[in-house]
């Protein structure tokens, strides 16, 4: 930071050929206690209220300012670092310092007030900039932020997918789309993977063993629920279906590498809670719950 960044540029000046009487009126009208003396743009001295009092006591008011002003002026250069100016302040003890360029032209004036004001402004700019950077660095408002920002007795996002039965051609599409949607909502990758795998397994089950059904995901404040609901044929023995390696898969399903009897086991492993209800021939309702961990 340089002196020019904090100095005041609208400086009230007087000319050396003006009289002390002019100065008295000028200082009274402008309510100032001193002024730089400038000749053709160049700083030639400083005149203060003290000089005026001396002139008054000597009845010397008709004298030109040039004879009463201080010519040994402590001034600052506009391109000087601001820290230098603090040293100058403490060295001389004046309240204001004229600022000149390297050619000696008066370009401004600095008081302690200007310095404090300049520093505060700089701090404010830094502060605003830092805030802006933090906001930018912060991820897009995620769904969890959204939940914090809005109020209602109950809020949830629902994603619904229709799954065709008896074909594995498009199997995985719903789980893939859901995963992409949840990613956009800001769910962290490890949880995203668990939800993706469990939903994919459930989707495969709908596609391979049922007449088709629906996958419904509810994104809640506390976590995600994924339901897989089908319209039959239902599971006669859930305990047996849950046994690792047990499978009723048809040949076409096995040919594709499914039907290893691991799907439900894997769903249980991936989800925090799993509930499986089934009635023959009405259908099966699988509910998987996933909790946000952080």
């Amino acid at each position, binding site marked *: 930071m340089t002196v020019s960044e904090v100095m005041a540029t609208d400086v009230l000046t007087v000319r050396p050929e003006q009289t002390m009487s002019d100065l008295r009126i000028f200082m009274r009208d402008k309510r100032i206690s001193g002024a730089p003396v400038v000749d053709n743009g160049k700083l030639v001295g400083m005149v203060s209220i003290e000089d005026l009092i001396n002139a008054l006591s000597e009845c010397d008011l008709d004298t030109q300012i040039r004879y009463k002003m201080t010519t040994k002026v402590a001034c600052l250069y506009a391109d000087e670092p601001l820290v230098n100016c603090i040293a100058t302040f403490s060295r001389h003890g004046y309240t204001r310092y004229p600022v000149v360029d390297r050619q000696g032209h008066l370009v401004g004036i600095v008081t302690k007030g200007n310095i404090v004001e300049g520093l505060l402004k700089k701090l404010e700019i830094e502060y605003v900039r830092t805030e802006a950077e933090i906001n930018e660095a912060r991820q897009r408002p995620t769904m969890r932020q959204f939940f914090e920002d809005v109020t209602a007795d109950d809020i949830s996002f629902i994603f619904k997918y229709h799954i065709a039965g008896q074909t594995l051609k498009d199997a995985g599409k719903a789980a893939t789309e859901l995963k992409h949607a949840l990613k956009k909502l800001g769910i962290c990758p490890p949880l995203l*993977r668990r939800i993706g795998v469990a939903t994919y*397994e459930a989707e495969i089950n709908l596609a391979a063993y049922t007449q088709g059904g629906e996958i419904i995901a509810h994104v809640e404040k506390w976590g995600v629920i994924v339901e897989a609901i089908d319209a039959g044929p239902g599971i006669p023995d859930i305990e047996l279906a849950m046994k690792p390696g047990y499978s009723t898969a048809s040949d076409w399903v096995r040919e*594709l590498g499914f039907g290893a009897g691991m799907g439900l086991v*894997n769903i249980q492993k991936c989800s925090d809670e799993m509930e499986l209800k089934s009635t023959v021939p009405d259908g099966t309702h699988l509910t998987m719950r996933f909790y946000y961990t952080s």
Partner: protein
Amino acid sequence: MKLNDLVKEFGLEVKTASGHLDREVKSGYVSDLLSDVLAHADEGTLWVTLHIHQNIVAVAMHKDLAGIILVQGRQPEQDTIVKAEEENIPILVSSLSAFELVGRLYKAGIRGAAAH
């Protein structure tokens, strides 16, 4: 070891996602049961299989696998290629059999995905 290095070392044919070969291979898994892979592979695992249908892409995507190697020179189906490009899943083809390929991958320093 990165996918790129494996492609060079084992002369693999890159079928999809050629822009995503700088990924580190953290482990390997060989299986032709998709549920088995879903249950036991890890993020960053390289999967060796003979399946060429599009479900392998969904499996790789959901498990965030590093890539898939098809053995015995098997070529992925067209649907599989399209989907793999969409999901940026590298599919590589080796002319070797699964046993031969996995043996060499192991020798190159790739170890099995941690058993769960």
